[in-house]
């Protein structure tokens, strides 16, 4: 059966999300686009195994993720370790003004183990439910939940921010308003 035009259009539409996920996983723009390319080829080849009406994005993310881990296995841990050393050298300082810098956040994210990073990305950024994320990662929902939880805790540690609500300029502003606005 030939690949339908609709399928091709849907693939095209999914590319921005796939690229974002690929960058989050691999932490490298070139590697990410190679991953996306490989994912598209694989998706095309096995389009018949996709059931129309089910979540195409989740299906594609699953392919991309599998591809990422199989490439990592082929390459061995060496590359990853040297990458890790590189990022360790980039010191993360909490900003003076309590405002978390995006650059710092990126560096902190890079320090997470892959399984935690992908879990927090799928849930917190890509917009998947815990059920969908569990399916993509081929694990239990509870596993995704604990990975997300650990990822969050780890990020808070690296960035030295507390899990409690942040008291920013707002609390000061309300004090000022309280005393002078009457």
């Amino acid at each position: 059966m030939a690949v339908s035009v609709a399928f091709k259009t849907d693939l095209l539409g999914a590319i921005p999300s796939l690229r974002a996920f690929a960058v989050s996983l691999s932490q490298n723009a070139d590697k990410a686009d190679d991953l996306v390319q490989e994912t598209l080829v694989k998706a095309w080849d096995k389009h018949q195994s996709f059931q129309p009406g089910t979540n195409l994005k989740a299906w594609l993310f699953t392919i991309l993720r599998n591809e990422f881990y199989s490439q990592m296995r082929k390459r061995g841990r060496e590359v990853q370790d040297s990458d890790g050393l590189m990022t360790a050298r980039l010191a993360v300082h909490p900003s003076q003004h309590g405002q978390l810098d995006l650059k710092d956040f990126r560096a902190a994210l890079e320090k997470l183990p892959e399984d935690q990073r992908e879990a927090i990305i799928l849930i917190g950024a890509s917009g998947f439910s815990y059920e969908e994320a569990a399916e993509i990662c081929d694990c239990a929902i509870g596993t995704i939940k604990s990975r997300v939880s650990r990822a969050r805790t780890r990020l808070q540690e690296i960035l030295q921010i507390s899990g409690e609500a942040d008291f920013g300029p707002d609390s000061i502003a309300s004090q000022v308003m309280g005393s002078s606005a009457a």
Partner: protein
Amino acid sequence: MSKKDEHVSGATHQRSSNADPLGTNSEIARKLKQYYDELVVDEVPDRFADLLSQLEKAEPARKKD
């Protein structure tokens, strides 16, 4: 820009971390969104559009044999 739209005085639902391990209102959750939104670029590089066109062209040829 100030965060004037936030009238909450720090008393957010931090206790519900079991049901929501990420904490939708947490600083981490907000940064995560910001980080990811920056990665999602709507413009698709030609490389991918070309690839799909090639796959499409290869399709009938593959069916012949």
